[in-house]
Every structure is written in C-alpha cells, then in structure tokens.
C-alpha cells in the first residue's frame, strides 16, 4: 500500500514537472521583462495568395519575421523573399525564413554581445554559405535591436521593408527605402551557381543603419513593403498613436490585426491611389490601385 502511494506521488510529481518545465521558462522570461526595458510585440500578416501558401511558423508567404530576446538585447526583424525566384524553381520564402531563423538563433545563443543589427544580418547571411544545403534566392531585410542597457534602438535595413517609430502621434524616426530603381529594392542574395554575375546582389554592408534613443511608450512598426506600399503613412500613424504607452499585448495585437487588414484590403482595391501607385507615377508609369503582396506587420511598444 505504501509503495502505491509512493509511486502515485512520484508519478504526479513527474507529470507536473513535465508540464511545468515548459511554462517555467516563459514565466522566467516575463519576470525578467518586468524589470528591464523590452519590447511588447504582436505580429499579424497575410500571404498574398492563401491557396498556395503553406502555413509555417514565422512566415507569411514569402515574408518571414522573428523575435528574439537575450540578456542584453531585444530583437525583431522582418524579411521579404524576392518572388522572382519562383520562375527558377526556387521557393523565395525559404531564403527569407532561413535568414530570420538564423538571426533568432544567433541572438538566442547569447554568444554575441551587444550585437548590432547589421552584424547580425551579415552573420546570418554568412550562415547561408555555411549550410550544406544551398539555400538560393534573395531577400530584403530589416532588423531592429533594442539595447536593454542603454535604451537605444539600432536598426539595419536592406531594401524596401522598413520601420516607423511613433511618439505621441509624431513620426520620430523611420527607415529610408533602398532601391536600385523602381520596384527593385536592395537585396541580399545567393544566386544559383554560375549566375552570380546576372543577379542583383548587395552585400550586408550596404545596409542602411541608424541608432535612435527610445522612450517608454514609443510605438515601433516593422513591416514589409506589402504594408508600406499600400497604406499611406498618415493612416499608419493614426493607428499607431492609439498604442502610445500601451503594455497590453492583446491591445497591440488588435492594432496589428487592423493594420494588416487595412493593408490587405487596400492592396486589392483597384481604385485606391496607393503609395505604390504614386511612386509608380513618379517614375512615369501610369498606375492606380494597391499592390497585392505578402503582408507582415510586427508592432511593438517600448516598455521601460
């Protein structure tokens, strides 16, 4: 009888251990978050074509995103795989998601100290070369690192993804779009062997970098061109202002959802004069309507 009770106790303990093992790590994380500056973030997005897209974690169509937390930094990033590779039988989403996943691994490994986003992108890009499986394609990328000790954000941007930082309804900092020419953004790429001369490829050093001191309550939007090409900045700022100082992940998620929905709807609105159409007109191309694309919205508020 004694042994049954004993076994039963051990058993329940073991089961409990098994379940709690997962929860403790996340609980730990949230405990430490309360003390130090960090980003409260939410993600929403849509693949351009629901019928073809396979749902994978951290991916919306050819877009990919990540969030990673280490002792000294809080990092978010998005990447947009260049769709043209599909004609060569290459899945453009694989490149961008590898890039983002590797960034995440690099941050989580904790072996990089005070990492700068440009270095992170360069290291991540370099890992593509170190993989036995050649992962071909190209991608734009934008990474934001919050240094949790100095409350500075460091950014690196290659191509036409980007970020906006809003404080009390004002845009205080935003990324510059990097394009070779209209609709051809800067991109990190790994072309198929023998084609290297024919493909646009920018080195990770070409990334546009900046640093900016953030304050408590600042709202950061990190998104791919599917958002910026379709939603006018003023609309984005209006939405983001609602989140000034917000720490509740649910509310942030709500706004992220609405921005993503807005982008999605405007992208398929053929009469809407989207930022993309305006830019096309500047380049002498008569265009109207949105630009259907994969959409990724990463919305975060700074909590200090």
């Amino acid at each position, binding site marked *: 009888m004694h042994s049954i009770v004993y076994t039963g106790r051990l*058993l329940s303990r073991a089961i409990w251990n098994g379940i709690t093992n997962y929860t403790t790590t996340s609980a730990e994380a949230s405990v430490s978050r309360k003390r130090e500056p960090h980003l409260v973030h939410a993600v929403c997005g849509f693949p351009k074509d629901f019928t073809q897209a396979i749902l994978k974690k951290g991916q919306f169509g050819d877009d990919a995103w990540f969030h990673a937390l280490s002792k000294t930094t809080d990092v978010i990033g998005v990447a947009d795989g260049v769709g043209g590779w599909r004609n060569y039988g290459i899945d453009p989403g694989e490149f961008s998601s590898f890039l983002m996943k590797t960034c995440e691994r690099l941050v989580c490994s904790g072996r990089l100290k005070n990492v700068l986003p440009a270095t992170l992108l360069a290291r991540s890009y370099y890992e593509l070369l170190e993989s036995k499986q050649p992962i071909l394609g190209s991608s734009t990328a934008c990474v934001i690192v919050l240094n949790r000790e100095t409350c500075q954000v460091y950014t690196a941007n290659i191509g036409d993804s980007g970020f906006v930082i809003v404080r009390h309804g004002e845009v205080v900092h935003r990324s510059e779009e990097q394009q070779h020419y209209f609709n051809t953004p800067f991109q990190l790429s790994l072309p198929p062997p023998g084609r290297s001369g024919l493909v646009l490829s920018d080195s990770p050093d070409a990334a546009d970098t900046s640093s900016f001191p953030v304050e408590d309550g600042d709202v950061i939007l990190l998104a791919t061109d599917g958002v910026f090409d379709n939603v006018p900045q003023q609309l984005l700022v209006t939405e983001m202002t609602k989140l000034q100082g917000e720490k509740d992940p649910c509310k942030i998620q709500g706004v992220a959802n609405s921005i993503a929905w807005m982008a999605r709807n405007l992208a398929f609105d053929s009469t809407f004069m989207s930022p993309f159409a305006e830019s096309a007109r500047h380049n002498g191309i008569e265009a109207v309507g949105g630009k259907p694309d994969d959409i990724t919205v990463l919305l975060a508020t700074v909590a200090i």
Partner: protein
Amino acid sequence: MVDVLALIDTITKEDNEVVFIEQFVSDIRDFSSQYGSDISISYTAYNLAGKPSKYPDYGDYPQAFVMRTYGRWWKEAPSGRREFMPQNLGSIVSQDFIDVIFEQAVYPFQVNVYEIYNPGALVRVWARSVQGKWALLWEGAAQTTRPMSRIFSPPLRTIQFPTNLLRLEFDHSNLEYYTELDAVCLVGTCKPFPENSLGTCHTLQNNVVRRRNGSSANCVGLVNVGDITNRIQELNIHQLSPQVDIPTSISTFLDHEFPNLLKQIEDMQKANPSRTALPASSSSLSPQPDQPTSQSANSGAFSCLPDESILHILSYLDLKDLCRCSQVNRHFRGLAQDPHLYIELGLRQFWHCVNPKSLNCLLPRLLYIQRLDMSWCGNYRDICPEEFVDFLGCCGRNLTHLRLNSCQFVNDFSLERIASICPKLQELTLQNNTKVTSRGFFSLTALPGLERLDFYRTSVTKEPLVAILKASPQLKHLNLGSCMHISSMDEVVLTLSKYNPDLVSLDLWKSYTLTSVGVNALGKCSKLEEVDLGWCLSLSTPGLSLNSIAYGCPRLKKIFLASMRCLVDYHLEPFLKNCPLLEQVDVLGSSVTPEIVSRLLRDSRHLRLVDVSFCDNISETHCDSWRRQYPGVNIKQSYQSEAKYRGVNQC
C-alpha cells in the same frame, strides 16, 4: 533551464522523496572536433546547448552538432595515423569527445541524448566531480540502428557525487555518415536517491519520457528505459540496502588501480582473470598479502623461457596489464617495466587518470620512449604546463612523435620547451590547442626534422607558419583545417610548393582565405596524395586552378571539394585522366552532373568513396543505380527531410 518549481517543493518529510531536475546543456566546455567553423553556428558544437531544435526531424541539419569525421575514411587516407600502443584502446574506441556543462550539479539519474542523424555513435558518458574526479556513467559499444531520430538514454551507473560536467565520447568509425546531435538532457536529483526506490524511479521515468514527447518517434528511447529496469533487476541492485556499496564503476577501478597497483603485490592467477572480469570483481584487486619474493622462483613455466621471449609476449599487453604483471614478483616487475616495452606510449585512452602522479610512476620506464600520445590528457588543470614540461624534460630527448590534441596544458611556454627538449621530433599534433600564440609557433622553427604537423583548430597565423614551413623541408603531412587566423592561405600554399616538395597530404578544410592562386601553386607538390579543399568559400569559383592539381599530382588518392558551389563537370574532367589512383572524392554541394560521376565511377578503378550530397543535379535514383552497378564504392548522399526516413547508402 532548471526546473525551478520542482526545487521549491523539495526536501520534505520523507527521506524517500525524490525530486528530479531536468536540464539541457547550458554551455560547451571543450570538444575534439566539429564540422562547422568557429566563426559560424552551422554544424558547430555549440548547437548542442539548449533545448532540441530539430528533433524529431531526421536529417543533415546545420542546427545540429556534427563532428569532423565519420567511418574509417580518414584513417585509411594517406594522412591516416597509426595509434601508439593500439592494445591500450580496448574494445570500445572513441575518436571524439565533447564536454558539456549544466547549470546545476545533480546526482545523475538519466542522460538523454537527442540524436537526429545516424544515431548510435555514443560509447561513453563520464561525469566530473567538483574535486576533479572523473567517473564513468556508462560505456557501451557503438550501435548500428535504424535511420531514425531518437532519444538515447543509456543505463547509468550510480555515482556518489553530484555533477554538472559531462563528457560524451563517440565512436563513429562504423557509421555510414556523419552523426548529428541536437541536445543533451541531464536528469538528476539534488541528493543521492535511495537505492531501494530505483525500480520505482525507472517506471516513473518511463512515464516522464512518454509524457514529455507524446510522439511515437521516441520509441527507441522507451525501449532503452525498459532495458534499464531489466538490467537493474538482473543485477539485483534494487534489493541492496543503501549501506552496501554499489559495485564500483570502471573509473574508480582504474583510478585506484592504475597508479596504485604499481606498489601492490598481486598473485598472477588472480591478475589474469581480472583482466576480463567486470569492475564488480574489484575486490580481487584489493591488496593481497605479500607473496614470497624470491627471484624467479614462482614465475612458473615462464622461468623456462628466456627473458627476451617473455618481453616479446609482454609487448602485446596493454598498459593496464603491464602494471598488473609488474606486481607478480620481482622478476616480472623487472620485465614488465623494461624500457623496451615503452618505446611508444599511448595515454589517450587513459585521459581520465593521467595526472602528474601517474606520469611520475611511468617515468622510470620511459628511458627509450620515442612516440608519445598524450591527447585529451590533463585538462581542467589536472596537469599544468610546468608539470608537463618537467615530465618531458625527463623522458623527451629521443621523442620523434608527440601527439597533444586537445591538451589544455599546451601553451607558448610548453611549446617552446618542446622545441628545445625534443630536437628529433618528426610528428607534432596540436589540434584544438587555442592557447598557443605566434611566439609558441615560432619556436617550432627549431625542429628541422618535422614530417607531420597538425594544427587543426589552432590560432596559428601566417608568419610563424611560413617560417615553420621554410624550416621543415621534409614535411609530408600538414593539417591546417579550421585555422581561422591565417590571413593569406595563398601565401602559405605558395611557401609549401616552394619549400616542401615531399608533401603527401594537405588539409585546408574551411580555409577562407584560399583562392585559386594558392590552388594553382599546389600543382608543384607532385607527391601529393591527399588534398582537402572542403568549404574554402573564397574558392567557390575555382576556374582552372584545379587543373594544376590534376595535372601536377598524379598520385592523388583523395580529393575533397565540399561546398564548391560552382564546381562543374569540366573541373573534374582532368582528374579522370590524370589521377588513376583516386579513392575518395567529395563533391558535396557542387553543380556536377550525373554524367561526370558515372564516368568517374567507371574510369577510377580504385574508387571507394564518393560523396554527392546536396548536388542539385544528382537525384537519389542516380545514386541507387550506381550503388547497384558499383557495389564496391560507397556512394553518400545526405539529405534534409522530415518525411524521408531512409538511411544513407542503405539499399
């Protein structure tokens, strides 16, 4: 990642309360080799830290820890090395190790190893105490298993101390391809668990494993857990009362026996059976009453033999047995300690008990020693550089071969002393000794007779290396794999081609600064039989430089060109015509077509290994048909796939 909640609730009313703590690796302390490079995170040892990232997927993933070699291919290549005192190695030989740290020290109860590609290479698990004592937790022969990812949980011995540092040893010599590990989980208790509950604990652990993973993929792990319980019942351990000592583990057995037995006198009849006996019989090794010590009076039939014959017989014994023999009587002591038996000495297998004391015991026998292997020995300050230099000063004058792979006592000081103590050195291997700087390497220029140098994963730089090469005209084998600090490999290779015409093998694995200029120069080393240019990323477009190797090195047996993405058929063409002796070819990740591989298989009669993994143009069907057509050739094609569970090269 310590299970905090489990801790809160610990130490309560009952003594029998057992709380298990599960933790994954928090850091990597040391390792002997890795596939990836130190400036990358793909295929590196550090991937073993943290929770599993790929399990239960099965395949060749950059997120795993992969070792540098597999199978016997490296041993059988022209650069392959003979072991010193191979009889020392015993039946379970390991080629690689990794030391992992956990956050909290526990009494180990279970070690779960997540193997995600070619499982079965783990052969030993060691635990280190805070005091620096190593204890063997488990030992078993390498397994051949189904190509499926699995959690391997070997049955552990009970040890009497908590540990947070484990060493895993691997034997991958029988594997079809690289083994890959995802994570290591240590399950243990804060206090020694009562033995009478062992049986219960194991059934319980069974439940933990099942609950945690829930999938069918870990059935191998479950089977093993069941095995533990059976084994424990077989051994009757679960019925022992806590007062009785659990049979001593092999390590304590060795620890006591190896240095101490020298002084003990033991009966020959008892010594012989104990050679094959389990550690459980360690009682037979305890000090015996002194035997009569008359000269060769009780050497039995051996006294009829001339000493030379006995010496010859003894030369087949390993170090352990020689120590035992020296305790038979004075006659045998004299014979078993005869310096002629110690012309070469391999201590790698005994890394866990080599310390200044045991070295001193050996010293009187090492009068004529020429070849010494101290790889893996003396880490964690078990031997300090001064102690090593003292030891070498006493016995090193005639050394021709010295292997010091993964020896933390090797620094500038010890290298300088090596160079002055051992002027006759022909072979020096310094793998993984990152402490040595330019100063130390420069001192090696004093050794004119060097024939083999192994600098794998050291921080050797260009200047001292060039100086060493110029000073060693007889150099035959050079390993510069993963040397990340060489600013211009081209210059090194140019020096090689000028000053070292006898070069037989050259390993430039992951030499990022090598370009086609250097490769061009290699053609001048006409005796070259082996060249490894794997992962030389600046060489991704080799142009015509490979031609110079093909035309200049007709004796080539092994060429590795892994991850040369732009390698196409016409780069390989000259090798077919000019290198008839080719045995091993690696074109992983290149753009070659099935056509050239077919011709390679047809024309190269000596071919035994072809690696065409991740070549886009080569499908599995091609490989299968080649395997049928050329059964004597090992055709490797690795893969990354969740759905596919077929093994490499298993038809």
